[in-house]
Every structure is written in structure tokens, then in C-alpha cells.
């Protein structure tokens, strides 16, 4: 979504700047803030100051990892300056190409020393004061704190699209998330070590965490500003969203019963073919209409054949799930009292 900067050759090697901490150091800090940097004009200093002050105020030890997602330019010099100022609290990971937020997050978690991960956009999107409340939710037993920008300050058109998207998601997966498009999240480290994400799944992280059995809490937060594209997006963006919704639907409802999904889809298509056939047969018998030349006959047969094929896919899906069932666990146990 963000324009790529022109590539130059002086991109530092990532491992040089973010050495893996010794394993015993993992958990030595309270909070790691992960900021995927996706454009050269990222407000890295503002983010660091806003969140850093807030974390200091609550007496939490912290570090901040900037992940340069195939981006350098101005933001890089700013982070260089910050590193000199803050020392080891500021760390960087650099990707040569843009891999997207999911990969940024995974890479940062690998290097993180803290037990809580905060993900933040590259600008101060949410009133930093909210961070304290969100961390408190973690202390109260939540595994994942998702934000809900309320009220929102971005243009009405964007808001409406976002609300619509979230409504569709809520309807489909039957979960009560109001704002999946805000990436200011507070997450327990174990969740991210357990949940493997990539591609466009970053957006659905709360849904996936919930699905895996983690306790996801939604907190209303004050929205300060919104970057990014205003108005309508390109056609491809909507197609991608639609596919995302499909994927989430499939994953949350039918993973263990693929035949329920394929069978229903195939059943509906077959049924429509059968109904069309009956309509033609009735026309033939009652009115002696010739159906041989009618394209409807072929369409009816095609529908039936297509539906049966889809059901066949579902059957193979069932075989796959059954043969893998040993490795699938539907539940997460919180505790066993022996």
C-alpha cells in the first residue's frame, strides 16, 4: 500500500544491528514496542517519545524495535540518531524487500527481550495514555488487547468502509471485534510464539488468537490521527479484503468439517441444477416444448456436475482432516487440577 523507496546499496545487514539476546535475557524487560516502518516519512521520534514516556510513567522497562520493511531514507537517519540517544533501548531490524507487517512482527518477536509485545503504527495513532490501560488488561489476565478507535477522526468515507468491513466480519465469524483495522495492539509474548502468521493475516491477529483459545479483550481508545489512503481504494484492495473475509470464514467455521462448507456450496449448486431440470421436464411434458435445442438443458447439467464436483472436494477435505486429526487439538487447557 505504501510506495517503495528507491533502493540504494548501503542498507545495513540486519543481524549487525539487532543481535539475538542470550536466551536467559528473554523476559528481562516488560515491554517491547514493535514499529514496522513502511515509509520514509515515519514519525519515529514522536512514536518513541510518546510511548516511551508513557511506559516510563507506569514504571515498565521497555525497548523499541523499528523494523524497516524494505524502506530507508529519512526514517533511517532519524533512527540512527535515536539509537545514539537511547542506546540499547532502540533496536532495528532491516529487510531488503518489503515483506509486510506479519513478517516484521515475527522477526521482532524473535529478537524481543520482553514478555509483552506492543505493536504500533509508524505514527502516533492512538492517545499514548491508553497504553497504560491496555497493559493493565494484560495484568488482569488477558492474552491479547485489541484496540477499538472510538470516536474516530479519519474521513467519514474511510470510517464507513471500515465499519462495514468489521460488521461483515462480525456477522460471519460471530465474534465481537469492532476494529480489526487498528494495529495498536498489546499482546502477551506466548501468543505470538504460538500463533504463526504471515501474509495478510496481521489484520486478523485478534481473530486468530481468539480462535486459538487465547483471551482477547477489546478496549476503547482515543483516536488521534490517521495516515494512509483517504477515500475509495483501488479495486484490487477490495478483492483482497473479500478473499480475506472468505479465508477467515473458512478457517473459523469449517476447519474441522470441510464437508459442511463444500457440501453446502455444492448442494446448493446441484439443487439449482436439478430444479432447472425439473422446470424443463415439466415444460416438455405439459407443453411439449422441445428442450433438446435449449441451452438451459446444458446449463442444468453443468450446474449438477459442478455441484457434485464441489462435494467431491469436501470429501477429500474430510479425509485430510481425519488423517491429520491426531495433530489437531480443538481446545486449549488453562489448567489441570490433578
Amino acid at each position, binding site marked *: 500500500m505504501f510506495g517503495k523507496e528507491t533502493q540504494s546499496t548501503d542498507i545495513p545487514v540486519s543481524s549487525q544491528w539487532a543481535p539475538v539476546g542470550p536466551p536467559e535475557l528473554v523476559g528481562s524487560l516488560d515491554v517491547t514496542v514493535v514499529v514496522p516502518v513502511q515509509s520514509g516519512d515515519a514519525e519515529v521520534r514522536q512514536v518513541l517519545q510518546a510511548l516511551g514516556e508513557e511506559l516510563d510513567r507506569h514504571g515498565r522497562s521497555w525497548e523499541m524495535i523499528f523494523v524497516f520493511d524494505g524502506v530507508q531514507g529519512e526514517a533511517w537517519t532519524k533512527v540512527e540518531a535515536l539509537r545514539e540517544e537511547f542506546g540499547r533501548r532502540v533496536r532495528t531490524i532491516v529487510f531488503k524487500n518489503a515483506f509486510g507487517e506479519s513478517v516484521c512482527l515475527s522477526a521482532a518477536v524473535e529478537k524481543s527481550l520482553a514478555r509483552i509485545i506492543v505493536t504500533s503504527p509508524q505514527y502516533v495513532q492512538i492517545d499514548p495514555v491508553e497504553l497504560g490501560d491496555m497493559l493493565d488488561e494484560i495484568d488482569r489476565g488477558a492474552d491479547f488487547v485489541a484496540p477499538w478507535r472510538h470516536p474516530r477522526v479519519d474521513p467519514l468515507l474511510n470510517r464507513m468502509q471500515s465499519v462495514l468491513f468489521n460488521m461483515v466480519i462480525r456477522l460471519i465469524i460471530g465474534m465481537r471485534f469492532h476494529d480489526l483495522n487498528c494495529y495498536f495492539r498489546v499482546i502477551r509474548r506466548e501468543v505470538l510464539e504460538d500463533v504463526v502468521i504471515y501474509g495478510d493475516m496481521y489484520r486478523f491477529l485478534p481473530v486468530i488468537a481468539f480462535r*486459538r483459545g487465547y483471551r482477547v479483550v477489546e478496549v476503547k481508545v482515543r483516536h488521534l490521527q490517521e495516515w494512509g489512503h483517504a477515500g475509495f481504494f483501488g479495486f484490487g484492495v477490495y478483492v483482497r479484503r473479500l478473499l480475506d473475509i472468505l479465508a477467515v470464514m473458512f478457517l473459523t467455521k469449517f476447519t474441522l468439517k470441510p464437508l*459442511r462448507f463444500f457440501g453446502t456450496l455444492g448442494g446448493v449448486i446441484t439443487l439449482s441444477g436439478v430444479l432447472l431440470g425439473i422446470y424443463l421436464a415439466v415444460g416438455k411434458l405439459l407443453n411439449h416444448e422441445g428442450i433438446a435445442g435449449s441451452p438451459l438443458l446444458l446449463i442444468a447439467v453443468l450446474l449438477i456436475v459442478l455441484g457434485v464436483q464441489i462435494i*467431491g*472436494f*469436501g*470429501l477429500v477435505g474430510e479425509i485430510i482432516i481425519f*488423517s491429520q486429526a491426531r495433530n489437531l487439538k480443538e481446545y486449549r487447557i488453562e489448567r*489441570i*487440577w490433578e
Partner: protein
Amino acid sequence: MAAAYPVPIASQRDTPPRTMPSTLQLSIVVPIFNEVQSLPILYKQIAAAVVPLKLTWELILVDDFSTDGSHEALLELRRDDPHLRIVRFSRNYGQTAGLAAGFDVSRGEVVITMDGDLQNDPADIPAMLDKLNEGFDVVAGWRKSRQDGFVLRRLPSICANRLIAFVTGVMIHDTGCTLKAFRRDVVKRLPIYAEQHRFLPVMSAGSGARVTELVVNHRPRVYGESKYGIGRAWRVLLDLMAIKLIVQFSQRPLRYFGVLSLVFMSIGAIFATAGFFGGSSPSSEVTENWKVHSWTNIVLSISALIWMLMVFFALLGLLAELVVHASGMHKRSALTRILNEQS
């Protein structure tokens, strides 16, 4: 793109594998969801039924993230009796997951499952154990005199059970009854997922277990609310197709798909025969040539479509074989009967 997402189901690290050697004689698994009122009674009745048997036993109560104080009640009960083991889920997962978790953590040579709502009578447990000792591997409860509404609960269940028996060839009158007894070897072999608990006896029969039924007591619901209703005929039908495939053909899926493939081949053949011989005789009288041609075309294209299904299903069968072999499932031996002869 949509297919690239991994399956988000937790692989549990802190549960012991089901193959752990059993150290007790009897495990009773009861999934609990918001049953705070019936819990003390349930416990008393189970204890009254099991203690006189002089067995080593455990009672596994799987708390499906109850919100009505059941959890505290469970911990209270456990304080007085070390036979209780309590498993608490991190959120609500439903009955099948509860049973699966119970099976996973159970240590008994025999595992008995039952409902937490007092509709099953724990007094039936000794009779079920006797049945197992007669040489059976699975004993399914049969609520012959069901205490539920006829139209809404019993009629759909009768239809479903008849259908299951017809399709799978294993007659279990009451697949929906949770009170069931399993030998450990059966439990170890059965993957339990989705809403499959009702098919467990049928599935274990498919893997070579001896399955029998026992008429059990069924009591009307006193506390709490019934947790499911009707309105799922289509889903049962789909589940049945899957169960048929899994029970009888999971070792050799190519046969299942092969049979379907042959069915489509015959349908196509019948259609083609009827089309060419039945259909062409009247039109051959028609002198206009184009009419004959259009009819032939139609019959040809429709038969070709149906024959495509034949090829398609044969290929799907091969794909399924591939899946089964890749998973190593075919190497797991079927349940042997030697175990029964020992007892």
C-alpha cells in the same frame, strides 16, 4: 491466496499424549458447562456407584469455561476427594472438545463418558463395566425411555440413528447418548474432533472394535437448560457422508471414490444409450437432417459431462490415497481382538 493460511488450531503442549500407560482401572469423564446446581448431586451419585466396586478410579471434570460459579463448586468438591481431576478450558469450546480433553488426560483402563446435567444415571456404570468384561470394547448407552419431547428431540434422533445405521451398517439405537464406556485401546485410536462424539461407537466399530448397547436409565432434566435443539438435518446428512467415508474407507479412500466414479460412468452410459437409441428412433423419422444432429449433439455433450465426473472422482480418489499415505495413517493397525481374549 485464501488457501495459504495455516490451520489455526492449537497444538497443545501441556497435555500428555493419549498413549500414556494407564495406571488406573476406571476414568469417568464428564464435560461441565454451567451446571453449578447439579454438580454436588452428580458427584455424590457417581461416588455412590463407583466406590462399592473397589476399583482404582478417577473422575475427570472438564470445565468448559463455565460462567455460573461451576468452577468454584468443582474446586470445592475436589478439596474433599482426591479422585477428582479438574480440567479447565481457556474459553468455551463445546462438548466434543470436553470429551476429547477428558480422553486425552484420562489414565483409566476403561473410560466412561457421561453428561453433566444428571440426565444420565451413574448407577448404570457397574452394568456397563460388566458388559465390557463380557468381551466388548465399546458399550453405548441406549435411552430406551427417553425423557424428552417427542417431536423436537426424539423423532429427529430416531430418524438420524436409523440413517446412521443404514449408511454405516452399525446399529446403534441411540448415538446421541453421552453415557458410553470405552476400553483404553479404543480411545487411544480414535481421533475426536468437531461434533463427532455421537459417531464414536460407529467409528470404533469401523476400526475393529466390538460394540454393543446397554439400556440405560434416562431422567428428565431438573436443572439448567438443554444445550441443543433441532434444525440440523442437512448437517447430519453431510456428517454422515463424511463418517461413511471415514469409517469404511479411511484406509482405502480410492475404493469410495472409485465406487462413485463407477456410478457416474453408469449414469453416463445409461443416458447415452437412452439418448441414442431411445431418442434417435423418433427423430430418424424426421426427414430434416438438422434435427437429428442437434439431438445427437445434446446427448453427446451431456454424456461427456457426466463422464467427466467419472474421471474427476477417480482422480480425487487418487488424491485421497496420497493424503492417507502421506499422513502414515494406513500404517496404524486395526484394533486386534487378542486384547479381549486376555481379559
